[in-house]
Every structure is written in C-alpha cells, then in structure tokens.
C-alpha cells in the first residue's frame, strides 16, 4: 500500500495519472548482455533456441526484457554472459558510453553490488583502469563476486568513504549515490512501509558532500554522472543545484532515442533550482514500464 503522505508529496510532481497505479504493478524482468563474455546476437540466438521470448530494447541493443521469470536458470546466467539488471540502472553508463570507450582511468564511486561496474568494465573493453569503490565492506563481497563472474580484468576494488578518497584525476566518474530508493518500490514494496520524509533529508545532506567530492576527482574536461533511484527533488535537482553553486560545473543534455525521459524540475515546495537542472533527466515508471530514476551528466 502506498502511504498517503507519499501520494500527497508526489501527486503534483509526477503530473501524470498513471504514476501511483504503476508503482503497484510488478516490474518486468530485464537483463543486459555482458559483452566481455558474449554478444547480443549470441544471446538472442541462444534464448530463441530455448524458446524463451526476450525483447531487445531499441534504445540499447544490449538490454533485454523478458516475461519469463526463469532467465536466472539459464546456462548464460551461470556463465556470466548475461547480467540481471534493472533497465534504468543501465542508463548512467550508457549516456557516457563514448567517454568510457576512450577513458584510461574511471571511478565508480559507490559501486556495490556492481551492476554498473560490470557494465562499465565491458564498455571499456576490459582495458584501462576502473576503480570500483564502496564504503560498505559487506556489500563489497557481492561486488567482488559479480566482477569476477563477469570476467572484469581492468577493475580494482577499494573500500573507502568517498568523502576521504585520495585525490587523483579521473576521465570519468560514476556517482550512483546512496538514496531513499523510492524508485525501486515496484521491486520491493516493503520500502513503502518504512518510507518517511526524514530519510530524504539525511540522504540529501550526504549526497551534496559526495557530488562535490566526485566532481573534484574529475580531470578538466572529464565527465561525470550523478544518479539516484528516487523521486525526491531534495536528493536530485537540489543536489545538482548545490554542485552548481559550489563549483564551475556544466550540466549536459541527455538524449536516449526510443526511451521517454522527463526534464528535471526547477521548482519544489517554494524552492527554486538553477535553470540548468532542466538538463537532468527524471524517469517516471509509467512512461517506459521501469523503475524510477534520476540522472545528471556533468562536465568539468
């Protein structure tokens, strides 16, 4: 059950009648081809051989959706040729794909359990250096398992608080921040029971520190993504606005032909955010039948 306070909070922002209804439906299963070990052509052929229907996404040829809950019970899953991942979670790496292909030093700042790290390692073709960092040691275990299974050779795992991370200049930084996770409620409806606004404010404070630090780790001309799986503007546009007030950052437009994106909001509960935050994208679950998500692409 969606809490009333949640409905009240978002009824205006979500500006679309399908939002709350969509949150109560089950998320379709999705996965990504691990191009370190396979190709999407091979995956299509093999799944066709099993008689499992899968649908390739027009906006990302390595992304698939399936109505069959058993994609985890395939040889391809065992072999790490596919990685089960939410569609929206594939977007941050996708928007900087070209930069990743040419990068020699990349930081995945909050990496565990590694959905994005494994995708980034593959986009880098296992070359260069990818630092996968996370604060939580218990989550590092899962990160390690997933990276080994994916066959990542270029990835170095570290276990530090990003706020105290050693200074180095990265070509690309991926900051997939800890957040209140409102956007994954379709997958885990327990989150509705523990949802409250206080959590949002706590996350927002930490995110503002993380985004400035992540930006400082970027080389001049480097590119960064900031993402969350939550709807709260305090954790999204407000955090990006904070970066803009502290540093000389530029917010790039994001385009993803074949996938519906909404622009960032410049107003929320009497607060005004800088006009550039309109270049950030919000992903509302009802538009593409996905989880909820927010992405900003930042250039230094």
């Amino acid at each position: 059950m969606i809490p009333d306070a949640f409905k009240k909070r978002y009824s205006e922002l979500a500006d679309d009648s399908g939002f709350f209804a969509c949150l109560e439906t089950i998320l379709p299963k999705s996965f990504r081809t691990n191009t370190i070990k396979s190709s999407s052509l091979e995956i299509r052929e093999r799944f066709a051989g099993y008689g499992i229907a899968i649908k390739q996404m027009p906006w990302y040829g390595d992304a698939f959706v399936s109505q069959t809950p058993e994609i985890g019970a395939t040889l391809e899953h065992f072999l790490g040729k596919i990685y089960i991942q939410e569609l929206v979670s594939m977007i941050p790496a996708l928007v900087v794909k070209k930069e990743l292909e040419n990068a020699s030093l990349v930081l995945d700042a909050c990496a565990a359990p590694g959905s994005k790290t494994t995708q980034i390692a593959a986009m880098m073709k296992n070359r260069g250096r990818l630092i996968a960092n996370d604060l939580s040691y218990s989550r590092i275990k899962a990160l390690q398992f997933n990276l080994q299974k994916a066959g990542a050779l270029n990835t170095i795992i570290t276990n530090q608080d990003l706020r105290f991370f050693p200074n180095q200049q990265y070509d690309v930084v991926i900051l997939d921040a800890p957040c209140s996770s409102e956007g994954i409620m379709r997958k885990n409806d327990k989150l509705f029971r523990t949802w409250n606004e206080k959590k949002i404010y706590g996350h927002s404070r930490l995110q503002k520190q993380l985004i400035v630090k992540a930006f400082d780790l970027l080389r001049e001309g480097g590119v960064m993504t900031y993402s969350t799986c939550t709807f709260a503007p305090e954790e999204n546009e407000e955090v990006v606005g904070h970066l803009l007030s502290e540093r000389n950052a530029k917010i790039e437009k994001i385009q993803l032909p074949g996938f519906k994106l909404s622009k960032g909001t410049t107003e929320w509960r009497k607060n005004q955010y800088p006009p550039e935050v309109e270049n950030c994208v919000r992903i509302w679950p009802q538009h593409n039948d996905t989880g909820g998500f927010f992405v900003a692409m930042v250039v230094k």
Partner: protein
Amino acid sequence: MILEYFEDRFGIPKAHFSEYQLYQGHKGKYYLGPKTIDRPQVISPGLLIARAEKQVKPTSNFLQLFGHLATKNILELSKPDAKRYIEGYDLRIEANADPGYVIVSYSGNFLGCAFLKDGLMTNNLPKAKRQQVKYL
C-alpha cells in the same frame, strides 16, 4: 610461474596476457589486473585467476573466460553431466586424461574447474557459483 603453469597444463598462451599484470595477494591468491595500480588499500586488483599453495589451482572464473584458448586437459561433459556439474556434484567419469586440474566444458561452453583422478571428477566450482540450470 602461474601463467607458465597455465601454458604448460592447458596450452593457454602466456603471451595472451601481455596487456595485464600478475599480482600476488594474501593466502596464495593470484590476480590478473591492469598494468599499474598506484594506490594503497586495494581489496582486489583485477580477476582472481588462481590459488597456489601446494599446487596451482585455477579459478573457475578464469577458466570460463580463457578456456577457449586451451588445447589440452579439457573435459567435455554430456548435457546431464554438465547440469550436475553446475549444481555442484562430483562425477564418476570414464576419461583418459592426465590426473590433475581440468577445464570442464559442455558444447563449446567453458564451465569451470574440476580435479580429475582415478575416474573421479571432484567439483571445484565455488559454492556461491553453483546453481540449478533448466536451460542449457
């Protein structure tokens, strides 16, 4: 010595890894990773490829990735045996192979590591990798 062993035992050419660097970690762990690390407090530098205590034991993750480069000591399983291997079982095998570590394969797929001796294939898949497969 690790890469030489892979070349010697499986015919996986050492030269294939010239872009990468071998690192030794704790407890006889060997990793294949990027050429430079240049930072302290690293949890793991690349892919764990072997553990070497008394003898060199390749990891299943390494063999899945590079098994296609091997020319020998490959153990080809039937479909029902491949399924049981992935589930974690040891198998009785009629095989004419050198005793020691082998690369387990099924229909062109490299599944992982096993130890073969006296007709018994001991399963070396880590517990966390074992699973049920319905489609193969």
